[in-house]
């Protein structure tokens, strides 16, 4: 394991850090020019509205580096307590990981292995179903630069990138003038499919407002039309809320496209059908390659959730929901995924890295978490850090700390931190916990 990088203060008034990376969403834009004055970010050129609020809102927090049961403590004391909690537990879990560097993720998985624990990431509550669909049928995909250079029919399904990934259109999917689409937006047809007319719908050439919970039926209609299988127009209209003729028109355009791209969000993966929806979409993209080139890509939310998938996979062989209690990795979503291990009252200790389950998990899961000792690492105070046995205030990745993040298309990008932080990094805290856990386990 590499020596943990030390955060070096970057001082002197009005420094500009060019080509800095924004880790707020899965777009991971690496072209931001950050202006720093008096250890504050005063400008984030080219950042979107979300990116600006990310950069402006992350002045170093003056909370203590570590709190044990809410009382200030040294990092060393926190590490000792954390290691004791994790090694004394019978069913410890490691969760979160999507908003930290892959260097830190690697150590977190190592801790999970050392304590015979369960490792899971926020993937299990966002694109987990897409991961399962991937296991079932594979995925025909590409990097975002290929979308920019070749994509001439872009379908957004069950997502609202105009608000969740504001620069996706301009940087990757709609506006760029690419090698094979030299006129940019004019060379592209944009299609939206969603249950409601979001801001994204306004940017589309065609919009399909399907009936809620009918994604699977809509996708199978398209799969049938792709293969010229006869379908009942009445049933299609009844099931999807859209006339068959409109689906046929879409299919004609899909077949006429040279390089079709489907980008999908949690509107597909977290609605009725879940992984079957994702599987239907991945299969549709695959089917289309009998006629033209077509690719598909999940729109990932967190800045390094894709890194978490990659790291957990290369170390254990599975992408999320991995249990190592028998000494080797086993995968079973629903059994080893965190919302389930908590809600069923199985987990008896937790290491939570860069996540806030106390704010967004189900009532039974939150109740269980409240009742067990857990460790939380977060740059900010959150409902999760407030109830933690040990809470570490860590430096913010990308703003204070260097490291690697993986964009939604698996492209690794290095971070250029703009600000110093007095807080330790996730990597430093996790490395210390890992060392201590290893000693205690001997």
């Amino acid at each position, binding site marked *: 394991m590499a020596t943990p990088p030390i955060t070096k203060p970057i001082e002197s008034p009005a420094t500009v850090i060019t080509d800095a990376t924004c880790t707020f969403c899965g777009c991971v834009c690496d072209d931001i020019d950050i202006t720093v004055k008096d250890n504050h970010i005063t400008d984030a050129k080219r950042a979107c509205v979300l990116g600006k609020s990310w950069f402006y809102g992350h002045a170093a927090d003056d909370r203590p580096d570590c709190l044990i049961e809410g009382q200030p403590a040294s990092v060393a004391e926190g590490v000792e307590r954390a290691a004791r909690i994790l090694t004394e537990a019978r069913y410890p879990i490691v969760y979160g990981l999507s908003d930290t560097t892959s260097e830190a993720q690697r150590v977190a998985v190592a801790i999970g292995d050392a304590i015979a624990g369960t490792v899971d990431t926020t993937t299990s509550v966002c694109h987990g179903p897409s991961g399962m669909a991937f296991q079932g049928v594979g995925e025909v995909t590409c990097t975002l630069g290929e979308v920019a250079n070749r994509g001439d029919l872009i379908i957004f399904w069950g997502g609202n990138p105009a608000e969740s990934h504001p620069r996706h259109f301009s940087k990757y999917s709609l506006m760029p003038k690419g090698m094979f689409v030299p006129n940019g937006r004019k060379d592209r047809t944009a299609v939206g499919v969603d249950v409601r007319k979001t801001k994204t719908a306004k940017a589309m050439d065609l919009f399909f407002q399907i009936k809620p919970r009918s994604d699977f039926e809509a996708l199978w209609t398209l799969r049938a039309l792709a293969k010229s299988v006869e379908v009942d127009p009445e049933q299609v209209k009844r099931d999807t809320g859209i006339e068959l003729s409109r689906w046929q028109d879409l299919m004609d355009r899909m077949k006429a496209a040279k390089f079709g791209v489907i980008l999908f969000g949690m509107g597909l993966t977290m609605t009725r059908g879940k992984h079957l929806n994702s599987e239907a979409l991945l299969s549709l993209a695959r089917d289309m390659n009998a006629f033209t080139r077509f690719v598909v890509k999940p729109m990932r939310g967190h800045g390094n959730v894709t890194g978490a998938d990659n790291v957990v996979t290369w*170390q254990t062989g599975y992408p999320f929901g991995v249990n190592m209690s028998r000494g080797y990795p086993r995968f079973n979503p629903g059994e080893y995924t965190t919302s389930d291990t908590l809600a069923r009252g199985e987990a008896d200790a937790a290491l939570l890295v860069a996540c806030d389950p106390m704010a967004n998990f189900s009532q039974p899961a939150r109740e269980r978490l409240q009742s067990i000792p857990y460790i939380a690492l977060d740059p900010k105070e959150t409902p999760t850090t407030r109830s933690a046995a040990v809470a570490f205030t860590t430096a913010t990745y990308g703003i204070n700390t260097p490291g690697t993040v993986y964009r939604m298309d698996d492209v690794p990008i290095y971070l250029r931190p703009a600000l110093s932080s007095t807080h330790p990094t996730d990597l430093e805290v996790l490395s210390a916990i890992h060392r201590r856990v290893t000693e205690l386990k001997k």
Partner: protein
Amino acid sequence: MSSGYFKIAGGTVYDPIHGVDGEVRDIWIRDGQIVEKPSDSNIRPDKTLDASGLVVMPGGVDMHCHIAGPKVNAARKMRPEQKRKAEKVVRTSNTRSGTMGSVPSTFATGYKYAGLGYTTAFDAAIPPLAARHVHEEFEDTPCLDKGFFVLMGNNHFVMESIHRKEPEKLRSFIAWLLGAAKGFTPKVVNPGGVEIWKQLPSGNVHGLDENVAHFDVTPRQIIEQIARAVDALKLPHSVHLHANNLGMPGNWITTLETMKTFGDSRGHLAHIQFHSYGGGEGDENTFNSKVVELVEYVNAHHNLTVDVGQVLFGETTTMTADGPLGYYLSNAFKSKWFSSDTEMESGCGIAPIEYRNTSLVHSLQWAIGLEWYLLAKDPWRVVMSTDHPNGGSFLAYPQIIQLLMDRTYRQDMLKQVHPAVLERSTLADLTREYSLYEICIITRSGPAKILGLTRKGHLGPGADADITIYTPNDDKTKMFELPRAVIKSGVVIVEHGEVREPLTGKLLYVAPEYDTSIESDIAEWFEKYYSIRFRNYPVPLDYLHDREEVACARL
């Protein structure tokens, strides 16, 4: 007092680079390297490993495998069904847990390679954009020194430079890209074909002189020009080529033409087995071996080297940067399919498959691989590989050794495959048996030499102390699947199949010199077409774990 020496005493040593063929010798190690025996006879080693009666060879070198990066990791994600049935890799006090199947997790990969006596491995196909990913995975792949080849055969800047007849620019670009990625040599995969795959439904190129649309170059020009540039840069290894038309009946004509295309340049043809097929297009019934015709050319042309890409029967996962090939295989096997088209242009295809000995095609593939080993005159230019995991897992290497060393075993196995193999290949007539000396060449000394690694593949002073010690056994599978001890950088990392000290291993990379004035051109191109910033692309040295630059000065 500590002398710092470690002695391997009295082993039967095989060191073909120095012409040592099974002689009883001592080997002295200090500071991770093999050294001369100390002239002062009072000096005693700190530690002695008694190797009397045992076989001592340099550590194995796998010059063509797929063990890291986005393609391998996607394949890991895609095959949970294999892992559940596979051997468990259980955590110990000094090793990490992991999963097996045809695409093992990183730690498991390192332990298992070391368990077979391999201490160096090169990943054969890395998309330039994924360089950092590979460095991260390599750091989590213990017990091995590692390097990787950088995909360039469908790169737009490369094709533009060739089209504009700017060989100097091409050379500088290759040097820049290898240096930026911290890679080892250019890999060319289905030159031109992967670009056409992105442009057209089921697109591909089918011959060396087909035009690559939009770029107006041919596969032949791409191979020829990159090979020349690599030689001009004096890279330690040649260009590493996955030729056009892989797996297609009748592809031997393309392969022979490809060999001729190299002219006087050095060239390595990867997994040559998959490129040695006769027969008519798409007609299984005419499928046959053309090894005799191809091996004759390789025997006579010393600028060419090959690794075999041996097929073994059983389930595996094919993975390739050859996008259209992945599509072809997934359709042929009706399997799940992963494909990824990548900027800084490369492709990727993954499909699970099963090689069956009842299948004519698979049986012939198996036989064709063996024909390559047995018909090649010069073992220094034919390297053992399964193109892991494409032809089978690297875990099959001991079985391949037995097939080569034990004619009876080979003929027994030949009886179990599709009977038409007897007529469509020469395998049944081949009586050659490899010696231990020759096995040592095709599994370590040869690949080390071909890669230009002067400190690998031999046991002379100055070599890295990567050494494998085997217990002799007439059953060569048994002998090679469980070494008595494996030493890496002078440290015993495996004993009796158990991992003792899983060193991380180092990265082997090149840093060729080039005219840096080209960087502004590359930057302009990069910012125009790619989705990350030029400045954020290159991998700096401090990003790497332990590392060693391999010098460019061999020619």
